[in-house]
């Protein structure tokens, strides 16, 4: 039983379809990254899941609640560009958020105080939000999203507008929060997704083009190659390498010979055996692993 399931979600506007027939299920206590280029439909999906946008068709079920029931109390949401009441202080806004989420006065206040500490803006709690910096607003945004201890925290591009230090801090915070709740966040930056998420949903043009855990996807798209550098006679060694049974292809680029193989470990052993047996004038031997970046490009450009 998944925590949240989307059934054939579609959102179309006059001109274009932002989200096209998407289905997925989130398991409890996972950190899921929605990843894709700008305009792929990430924000639209998050808004539909958060309940502020109605899908054109399709439905969402939350645990065993009925389709169409209001599960906003189970969700925390931070939009990409959060806007607050600038005339409130950070503390006031958090208490207000807590009260709106049906926490009692005392509970709201306690949660607000402890969250201000947790996200590191305790010093500015009595300052008007109008005077907060971008990074402080982002942290306040996360605090208001989790004040009611939601089961799912949804973050839309939580770090893309931050400087490197702010980004580091928010990613660390997400790493901590992931122990307590399911996190779903969107990003167009792969390294961020790589760092904190357990699962990826790759989006392109409003459709899911690939999904799975990091490990699964790495394995699936691993097109590792071996890079060999020689002083001379690249073409001679290319012919020799291609005769090895486990290799599937090779090419030369900038004085280096690249060899691909079905079983990269076997190919490595066979090539190295040959190198030592025939005493090849080898300059370097490199095992290239596919990066997430390569995989992303490959999937998105399919």
């Amino acid at each position: 039983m998944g925590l949240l399931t989307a059934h054939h979600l579609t959102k179309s506007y006059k001109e274009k379809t932002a989200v096209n027939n998407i289905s997925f299920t989130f398991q409890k206590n996972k950190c899921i990254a929605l990843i894709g280029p700008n305009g792929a439909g990430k924000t639209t999906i998050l808004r539909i899941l958060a309940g502020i946008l109605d899908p054109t068709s399709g439905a969402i079920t939350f645990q065993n609640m009925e389709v169409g029931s209001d599960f906003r109390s189970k969700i925390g949401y931070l939009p990409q560009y959060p806007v607050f009441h600038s005339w409130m202080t950070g503390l006031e806004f958090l208490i207000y958020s807590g009260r709106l989420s049906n926490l009692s006065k005392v509970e709201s206040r306690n949660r607000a105080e402890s969250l201000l500490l947790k996200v590191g803006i305790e010093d500015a709690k009595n300052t008007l939000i109008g005077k907060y910096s971008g990074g402080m607003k982002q942290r306040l945004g996360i605090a208001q999203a989790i004040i009611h201890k939601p089961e799912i925290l949804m973050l839309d591009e939580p770090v893309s507008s931050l400087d490197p230090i702010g980004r580091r801090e928010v990613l660390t915070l997400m790493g901590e929060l992931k122990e307590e709740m399911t996190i779903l966040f969107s990003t167009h930056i792969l390294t961020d997704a790589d760092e904190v998420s357990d699962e990826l949903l790759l989006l392109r043009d409003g459709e899911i083009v690939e999904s799975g855990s990091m490990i699964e996807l790495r394995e699936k798209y691993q097109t590792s190659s071996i890079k060999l550098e020689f002083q001379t006679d690249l073409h001679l060694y290319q012919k020799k390498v291609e005769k090895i049974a486990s290799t599937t292809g090779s090419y030369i680029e900038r004085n280096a010979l690249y060899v691909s193989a079905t079983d990269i470990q076997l190919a490595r052993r066979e090539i190295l055996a040959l190198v030592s047996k025939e005493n090849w004038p080898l300059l370097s031997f490199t095992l290239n692993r596919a990066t997430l970046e390569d995989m992303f490009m490959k999937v998105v450009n399919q």
Partner: protein
Amino acid sequence: MMQWMTLFNKEMTENWRNKKWIWVPLVFILLAITDPLSTYYMPQIIDAVGGLPEGTIIEMPEPAPAEVVAMSLGQFSSFGVLIIVLTSMGTIAGEIKNGVAELILVKPVAYKNYISAKWAAHLLLILVAFAVGMFASWYYINLLFGDLSFTSFLFILLFYGTWLLFVVTLSIFYNTFFKTPGLVAFFSILTIVVMSIVTQIFGTYLEWSPNNLSNYIFEMVRADDISSQLVGTSIVTVAISIVLLILSIYIFKTKELIQ
């Protein structure tokens, strides 16, 4: 109810911090007393400006209390309405436009609470400001123009209050309709102007049009008698307001809040 109070308190605090609770009552006092005072001093003012030849005797009948009440209400019906509309045009539309609503409405907030708390907070501000302004007018009437009983004053508040209720509700209604505060203000004013023209043209058929309230109140003060038209018109005005409020909530529920 707890959530409604949270939303209502937020509006009250906001209107306090942006000083609406100070300046709107002050302006309403000025609206209510400027005309009566300048009318009272008109002879002296004309004399002082010296626009008339030496020896001219200025004779102006002193207005009756009912006419002075009409002067004050006249100001509320024009500038007062303008201020009501301009102070409320962004209460919902503005929050949606600038994006705060995206944070608030993902919380388990009942839309009917969100709308009705804003409506109630704004209505309270306007009614209090009106009562303060009208109280000042009542004070000057008794001081300068003649007796106007406190009961009459209360009835003026009650009946004209229904008109203000209508104006506030109309603005909230358009707030749920448009995302641009300027459009909210424009259509609120346009609606009131069109209603007023229609009431003038088809006056005989539209005896209970809300726009007639000022006239009936004038009659009430003059004749010291509450007419059935006044009661009927007030009931119609309240009824229209209730329908508008319910429609607002309905529109807000079904509308796409974010593009």
